[in-house]
């Protein structure tokens, strides 16, 4: 009916581009997701100390990176940081070149953006935890660290898993914006392929399916993790 034409897929160059695109998308998503989780945990841990200046610092971080578009953060990291002096001298040419590559800029921006969201998710997990559990732990003689790692963190992680799944899926899809700063991920090559072939619809359908497949794998894994970690009385635990 629409006369879909996928003959361009036979071109080895386009096959290679799509493959490189998928690999780079996965690399970027994996790196920034892991970093975002680590940042989220550290930030939430920081809040539990209830130190005035540390709270203010974490809140400032959250506000800055959550309230600005990740696209802008990437452009800023890519174009502005080197102008501000983040440069090194390339020994082979003697030229002054930017320190951070396009991929590094994208990975760092996405990590900080995802991290800011994750801090809030983990904090909500800790704050919604029943006080009675914390009090019980305290009366059993758990110290500050042991209480966080053995009681608060495990329960909070379970409570905030659905929110974390949302953040990670969003982060995965936001990797597509890295094409703007020349990171050769899936959308970067998709654009070039439909500009070459004019098969806009066909390329878009394929890329859409690839994203659905990749993100579905992530959400499936997160759902399994949620089921695996469930314990009686919480979430999906019976």
């Amino acid at each position, binding site marked *: 009916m*629409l006369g879909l034409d996928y003959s361009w897929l036979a071109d080895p160059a386009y096959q290679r581009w799509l493959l490189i695109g998928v690999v780079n998308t996965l690399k970027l998503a994996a790196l920034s997701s892991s970093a975002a989780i680590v940042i989220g945990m550290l930030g939430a841990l920081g809040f539990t100390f209830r130190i005035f200046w540390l709270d203010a610092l974490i809140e400032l971080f959250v506000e800055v990176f959550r309230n600005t578009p990740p696209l802008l953060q990437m452009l800023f990291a890519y*174009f502005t940081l080197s102008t501000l002096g983040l440069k090194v001298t390339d020994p082979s040419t003697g030229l002054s070149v930017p320190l951070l590559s*396009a991929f590094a800029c994208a990975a760092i921006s996405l990590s900080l953006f995802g991290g800011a969201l994750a801090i809030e998710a983990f904090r909500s997990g800790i704050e919604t935890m029943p006080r009675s559990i914390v009090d019980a732990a305290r009366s059993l003689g758990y110290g500050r660290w042991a209480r966080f790692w053995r009681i608060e963190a495990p329960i909070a992680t379970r409570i905030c898993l659905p929110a974390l799944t949302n953040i990670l899926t969003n982060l995965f899809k936001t990797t597509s914006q890295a094409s703007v700063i020349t990171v050769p991920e899936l*959308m970067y090559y998709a654009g070039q392929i439909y500009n070459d*072939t004019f098969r806009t619809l066909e390329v878009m359908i394929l890329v859409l399916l690839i994203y659905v497949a990749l993100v579905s794998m992530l959400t499936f894994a997160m759902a399994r993790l949620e089921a695996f970690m469930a314990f009686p009385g919480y979430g999906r635990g019976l």
Partner: protein
Amino acid sequence: MTGFKRMMGVSALALATVFVAGAAVAGTLDNVKARGKLIVGVKNDYVPYGYLNDKGEVVGFEVSLAKYVARELLGSEDKIELVPVIAANRIDFLTAGRIDAIFATLGVTAERAKVIDFTTEYVSAAGPSVLMAKETIISKWEELKGKSVCGIQGSYYNKKMTEEFGITLVAFKTQPEAYRALKDNRCIGFVFDDMTLQQKLKEADWTGYKIAVAPYEFQPMAGGVRKDDAEFREAVDKAIGKAEAEGKLIAWETEFGMPHSDYIAARAKAASAKKN
């Protein structure tokens, strides 16, 4: 979310393109006459072919040509609507019926000929060249192998750059980003349309740069019309032929500060010989 949204948006646009293209195949000439206005896609950021002058009007070599065609078809060069287009959307705009014709630095390629029809070719445009720092010793495409070169996403020659010349292409969405990246030394050169780079070199802060690698090809440029609409294409061709015979294209070269090309002179001569 944003990535997904953008994809959905583009897919919907593409979908609309497919449906509308089916509906509006023939009869553009009748439509234009009934409407009393020719709708043309032109560049508005591309000296000398289509750009904004000091008063904010769209002018240029191809804008003058489009106005001439409007005059031939409808009796007045004011019976025209100029729609700014970019390389990435001009063909979609045409097939979707938003514009009647493209006069926007459209290079004639076999790939495009599958989707649209070309009018008479009227310019032989130099293909891409490479802008590099003056000190460079690179002068051939082959010498760029393995080097990072800035470019623009979606350019028709990008595949040739990476696959044939083995260039590591660093492709941006827009020109200002690519120029910035070149100055930041994120790439050793900027591969782009030769005419644009030549104009850039006239600017004061680009004196330390030169066209290091010359174009590997010269490509004919033509107008674009919807496929299989011979009546309209012939009417436009006739108008272009008349402009060539009257020496208009040579006059426009002068008006818009282009070097006089042998190609346009030869076509003018042939067209006027044909007329007499």
